[in-house]
């Protein structure tokens, strides 16, 4: 790799199209004869539909059809109960899609949706997670396939004997993914083939799901996802919009565009489960942890089991001989939770990293130093060596850049006028994994190269990063390389999620390019007109990787100001240092890290799905009432990385960095608030009413 494209800042390849509005998103492709679908949400929480009267809707001008369980095309019941839409009269949660109106215009479809009359036979429901919910149970595994509970040593005895003990319970509310582009699809059936323009994070999986649902061979379904306006996990698999659009298009035998509304994103697409987490840490007076326990409670739906791996973070993060983690779930009459940026790690780290801060306070040890003292030599969970572990480097480099050394550990020590000022820190880790993928590389007679892989660029800059990786692997200037992604007709690849996009895709791209170079080395004479193409698959190589603990690490530092009278919190500085292997493109890497930290700030201070139990849904289901951090909430936000070469990862040496930014951020901010005010808020978000009049509380 000598061309040196990797590691250089480069603007997004499609940046111009995006800012000039010519980049097409799922429902923006010009189409003749197109119709519009509008999803109708259930107005009951739990029960059965007893009657659907579509007549008033059908009587409206422009309305073509109303699909529901009584007339929709049949789907296979064996794919995913979540996608088994419009097949049964059962209602599992308020807002579940129970009908679709199709019309000549989007306005007619929306008006039609208001005129579909649905009667329900309802039953009492339970929608609020509590620590003593009678339905709590122990799932067989947690996402994706971790053991539910783990134990080593004798936690109870070690905790009881520990000189210093921390025992605290932390709560996080429901968080809702709000990508700029909602879940949206254009569906067309042509001669038994299904063509979908869909907003998702991985169209290979969507293609497979849709083919199975409709009982067709995969080749009969094509999913194009050229540009995706964000997903944060919520588009990690086929969702309601693509299924409803395909059902509707088949029913009316015309193309259908269907986009969910902002309000409809609060539930049916999944959300981060609320959590109740008890963390116990026992250490000696020097802060060396002897006993560590994390008990996590979260919720799932009546439809399917989603077991957030909240406490898994604690299994590998800090040392300590006696350890235990548990997960319990309650099945509620709610939509199924789903992935949201760093599922598991993010809420789990909020609890563990907050508890670490409490331990630092209890021991009178600096929280940076406490983490360094408890940095394990090998993975405490599996006993494997780390491929690289640079948490300490992140902490020390962060402390240096942040100016941590001068910190007075006493709370309420800094005051500027009305502002009480404090600082906090947290560690972060996120698994560095890879999934199997395939890619092709083609050498053209004109000296150009084309690389194809069904990667998805959800706004992260993935397209650009793969192009840089390909150029280096081919050892040519990047201008000679073209990259094609975002189409299920391309070689199959996994989702843009789990911080596995670039690691998985670049692996296949590098192998294809290397092999092509090899072949070209032996090739004599002219290249054929359609070029010379090789294909690479990484499944075997990934399976053959030796077992090791592979993680990205990071440390977030926050400085907050708390208004002494009103309790308003502002973040004056947020600084993160990360160890993420090779950074392919500093421009887009930085936006991912800063974006993650911003989302963590939002989680700490603002976001909260406010549920009304009587209605069984979230009442603040729009962006005016569900607050997401605004620019004015943070004065300075910075991300850096330490140099890291890790030969035990993948050919490009990347760890992935879409999620690590969010992981510890909320804990760093909560700890900074505690340092500023003396008040530890253990239930997020840290809203002003929890700190009101804090100058007297402290």
């Amino acid at each position: 790799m000598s061309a040196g494209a990797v590691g250089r800042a480069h603007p997004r390849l499609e940046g111009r199209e995006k800012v000039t509005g010519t980049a097409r998103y799922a429902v923006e492709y010009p189409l003749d004869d197109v119709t519009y679908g509008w999803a109708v949400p259930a107005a009951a929480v739990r029960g059965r539909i007893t009657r659907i009267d579509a007549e008033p809707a059908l009587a409206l001008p422009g309305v073509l059809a109303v699909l529901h369980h009584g007339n929709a095309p049949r789907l296979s019941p064996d794919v995913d109960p979540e996608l088994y839409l419009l097949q049964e009269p059962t209602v599992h949660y308020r807002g579940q899609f129970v009908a679709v109106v199709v019309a000549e215009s989007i306005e007619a479809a929306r008006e039609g949706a208001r005129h579909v009359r649905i009667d329900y036979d309802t039953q009492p429901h339970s929608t609020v997670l509590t620590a003593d919910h009678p339905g709590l149970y122990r799932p067989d595994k947690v996402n994706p396939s971790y053991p539910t509970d783990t134990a080593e040593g004798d936690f109870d005895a070690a905790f009881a004997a520990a000189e210093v003990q921390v025992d605290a319970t932390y709560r996080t509310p429901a968080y809702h993914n709000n990508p700029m582009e909602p879940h949206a699809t254009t569906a067309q059936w042509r001669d038994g083939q299904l063509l979908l323009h869909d907003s998702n994070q991985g169209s290979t999986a969507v293609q497979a799901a849709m083919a199975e649902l409709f009982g067709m061979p995969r080749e009969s379904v094509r999913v194009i996802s050229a540009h995706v306006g964000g997903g944060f996990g919520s588009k990690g698999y086929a969702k309601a919009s693509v299924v409803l659009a395909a059902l509707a298009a088949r029913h009316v035998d015309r193309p259908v565009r269907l986009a969910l509304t902002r309000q409809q994103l609060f539930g049916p697409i999944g959300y981060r489960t609320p959590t109740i987490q008890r963390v116990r840490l026992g250490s000696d007076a020097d802060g060396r942890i002897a006993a560590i326990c994390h008990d996590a409670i979260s919720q799932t739906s009546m439809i399917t089991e989603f077991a957030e791996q909240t406490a898994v973070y604690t299994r590998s993060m800090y040392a300590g001989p006696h350890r235990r983690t548990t997960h319990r779930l309650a099945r509620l009459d709610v939509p199924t939770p789903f992935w949201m940026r760093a599922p598991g790690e993010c809420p789990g780290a909020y609890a563990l990293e907050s508890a670490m801060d409490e331990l630092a306070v209890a021991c009178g040890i600096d929280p940076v130093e406490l983490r360094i003292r408890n940095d394990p030599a090998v993975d405490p969970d599996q006993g494997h060596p780390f491929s690289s572990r640079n948490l300490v480097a992140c902490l020390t480099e962060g402390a240096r850049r942040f100016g941590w050394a001068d910190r007075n550990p006493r709370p309420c020590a800094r005051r500027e006028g009305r502002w009480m000022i404090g600082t906090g820190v947290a560690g972060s880790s996120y698994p560095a994994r890879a999934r199997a993928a395939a890619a092709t590389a083609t050498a053209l007679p004109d000296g150009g190269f084309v690389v194809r892989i069904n990667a998805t660029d959800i706004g992260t800059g993935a397209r650009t990063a793969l192009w840089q990786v390909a150029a280096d692997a081919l050892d040519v200037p990047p201008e000679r390389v073209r990259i094609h992604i975002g189409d299920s007709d391309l070689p199959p690849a996994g989702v843009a999620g789990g911080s596995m996009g670039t690691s998985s895709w670049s692996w296949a791209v590098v192998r294809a390019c290397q092999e092509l170079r090899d072949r070209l080395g032996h090739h004599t004479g002219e290249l054929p007109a359609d070029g010379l193409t090789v294909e690479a698959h990484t499944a075997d190589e990934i399976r053959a990787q030796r077992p090791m603990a592979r993680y990205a690490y990071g440390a977030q530092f926050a400085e907050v100001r708390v208004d002494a009278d009103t309790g308003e919190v502002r973040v004056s500085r947020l600084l993160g240092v990360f160890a993420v292997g090779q950074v392919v493109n500093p421009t887009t890497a930085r936006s991912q890290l800063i974006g993650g930290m911003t989302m963590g700030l939002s989680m700490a201070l603002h976001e909260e799905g406010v549920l009304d139990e009587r209605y069984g849904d979230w009442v603040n289901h729009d962006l005016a009432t569900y607050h997401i951090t605004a620019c004015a909430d943070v004065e300075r936000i910075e991300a850096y990385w330490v140099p890291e070469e890790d030969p035990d990862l993948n050919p490009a040496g990347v760890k992935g960095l879409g999620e690590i930014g969010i992981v510890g951020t909320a804990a760093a901010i909560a700890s900074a608030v505690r340092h500023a005010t003396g008040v530890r808020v253990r239930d997020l978000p840290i809203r002003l009413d929890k700190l009101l009049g804090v100058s007297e509380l402290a």
Partner: protein
Amino acid sequence: MRSFHYRRPADVAEAVALLGADPEAAYLAGGTNLVDLMKLGVQRPDLLVDVTRLPLGGIEPLPGGGLRIGATVRNSSLAAHPVVRRDYPVLSRALLAAASGQLRNMATTGGNLMQRTRCVYFQDTGKACNKREPGTGCAARHGQNRDLAILDWSEQCVATHPSDLAVALAALDAVVEVAEAGGTRDVPVAEFYRSPGEHPERETTLPRGALITAVRLPPLPAARRSAYLKVRDRASFAFAVGSVAAVLDLDAGVVRDVRLAYGAVAHRPWRALRAEAELRGRPFTPELAGRAADAELEAARPLSHNAFKVPLVRAITVRALTELAGVEA
């Protein structure tokens, strides 16, 4: 599709006549509130009468002092007007603390005063709301009511008025000029909004079809020393959790005149007359400001989730007045 008509009247008389002829018609100004509510199905007018081309877009000084602000003046222009910034800073600050730059560029004076509550139950046609649909009940009374009223609510409605502008206007004793079928009329802001009582669907004292043509600010030299303090859940682009508009006139440390109004506490902008009476004629101290707020808030009846608003409003009253007085807290 739900179709509606759109008209652009040539003058005020035609606008008023159009609304008078059609009980389902509504005025359309910047559309930043009305169009949202139409999309949500909360409001369903069959005729929109666009008032933005009417000659109501000026800001003129009045002969005896004071200012007349046209109903279609955009919030951003009003906030930036040099006379407003000099003579009525409370008004400029209230506007700039509201919504976002883009919204302020569209939003008008009249539309801002007439905007509807942000109570989440009002905005969701799937939930009970007496304001949206009289007789259906108030889901907020025993529901998620953190952001709602602590003063003057009724069993039928606990909504708050969301406007920041209206709070400043209440403090300034502004007068709303209104055109109706029978002619024109002046309505002081103090008499413009209603308590929810038995009829929360009626928000103002205006008869249906009345058109706001202007807002008049009386001369108030003391307002040069005025402030708007708004507390919100994030630093920008959020409605108030509590706010205070304050004008303070001190004579050798003694309160000669004071105007106080609260936002986000009631169905209307809340002029704090009891607090003012407590302050007037006394030497100003932060403690006095606190006692004045206590006097006003004695009548507060917090809901299940908003008891915190009482100490919050007290705190910002003390801060706003103390800062205006230029004394150390």
